[in-house]
């Protein structure tokens, strides 16, 4: 089922991406082409097939390991915050969210 213009705007909102009405039509046409490509795999019978989330699940040490709950990172906040568009007194600044 092809995506409607409304659905493109809903996806754009979910993805926090501004898509103007002018670009919306081109984006919609291309997304529908890609979904057409993807549709080929939807019809495959996969009853009883285990989803594959790790490419080498059978290898020793594969899967999500847990590490010991220890502090390993030194405090480098000044270095990290030097990259930020706006900081003040060690805090990242964003537009006001609560009046």
């Amino acid at each position, binding site marked *: 089922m092809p995506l409607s213009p409304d659905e493109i705007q809903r996806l754009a909102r979910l993805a926090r*991406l501004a898509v103007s009405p002018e670009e919306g039509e081109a984006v919609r046409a*291309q997304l529908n082409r890609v979904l057409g490509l993807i549709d080929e795999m939807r019809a495959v019978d996969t009853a009883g097939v285990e989803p594959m989330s790790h*490419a080498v699940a059978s290898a020793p040490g594969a899967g999500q390991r847990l590490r010991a709950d220890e502090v390993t990172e030194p405090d480098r906040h000044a270095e990290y915050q030097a990259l930020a568009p706006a900081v003040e007194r060690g805090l990242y600044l964003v537009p006001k969210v609560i009046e």
Partner: protein
Amino acid sequence: MLNSTLSELAGALARRSISSVELTRLCLERIARLNGALNAFITVDAERSLREAGAADERRAAGRAGSLTGIPLAHKDIYCTRGMLTTCGSRMLANFVSPYDAHVVERFAAAGTVLLGKTNMDEFAMGSSNETSHFGPAKNPWDTARVPGGSSGGSAAAVAARLAPAATGTDTGGSIRQPAAFTGVCGLKPTYGVVSRYGLIAFASSLDQGGPIAKSAEDLALLMNVMGGHDARDSTSLERAAEDYTRELKAPLAGLRIGLPREYFGAGIAPAVLARVREAIAWFEARGARLVELELPNSRLAVPVYYVIAPAEASSNLSRFDGVRYGHRTRDYADLADMYCRTRAEGFGAEVKRRILIGTYVLSHGYYDAYYLQAQKVRRLIARDFAEAFGRCELIMGPTAPSTAFALGANRDDPVQMYLNDIFTIPAPLAGLPALSIPCGFDAAGLPVGLQLTGNHFTEARLLGAAHRYQQETDWHRRVPAATPL
């Protein structure tokens, strides 16, 4: 010197017939002369390179040199490098200087290699032509009106034009192997989990894997000896003992079973590509390898599955680019949501946005089972085909790409046509398998053709050995583009 392999360069450095500073200067001069036309590098810092080369020469004088100490190389601009820009080919990170080094960058620095600069790439590694780069496309040295492939197109072009002896790349759906094929160089995508992803800007985490791009299979093996190995900082890095990837370079070909999947020799492949690949396979057969016809029936689903899984993981990974902690932030905004939306609309290019939207769709409420979960199940069917095939052969051969390098702009308006370029490179990462591309000849237009070798998990050394034997008796990998003479 510029056409020498890494072991030849290492020998020259060890004999003191050239210093690292001299070798680095040669590369920097060539970059200064040719990069304007090729756009293979996004960032070059000659002062830093020469400083590192000087340190390498001192290390050698002190008797502490390793096998690659003093060799200059380039990193794809997806690897974080402290004190140098890491843009990932995006406006979003056009001013980003990482506060830390990627694991791979650390390993090469510890080995004493010299960083020449950071290479051009498709934005966030999403592309097969290098045309999605915010910094303009890298060009193919064999014909600068054509693409070098992608996403590691800058690394491949740099090695092909002999601007750098070797470079790093990353491969999610073919991003090392397809550009290697298009530019006549060698590229290896290792088994998933062999090379740490720490400090490698994430695209699709269940597929992304770093690997080397170089002039020969032996060079790839030497680079893998530095890049490979466990790293606790990447939770998907496999805990395996260190390997010597050169150990099978002398292995005989007699008795080797080479699988030829019917699906890799079907319709839609350029006749010259098919002819060169068949000639290469005949070479192996003439040296005692046995050819085994087989089928990978689910491989036709690999591209559709990939375009669910990769965008889904990308939409999640790229949510971190929000204009708050690093990277681009829009100038004018009404509130927080508006700041996010505008920042991301300005910071990302069209292809990245397309993939984020597809990923958002396939993960959204009501569609997850039909798309993402279904794709993960079909992914297992694709992996099972390979597992069965490797019961009957040691490695699989076929073309790396269905065509030679295409013209810049040829697929610009048709994403699906662009995606179908990766039809032969996408199956291996879905199954987590190692695969490499080596040059095996040229088409009538003088463009290189790539031969792809795919093996079972952890058989990199075997693949490299077979490729090395081929390169002992052929010289495709020694050819240099006419436009960039030595």
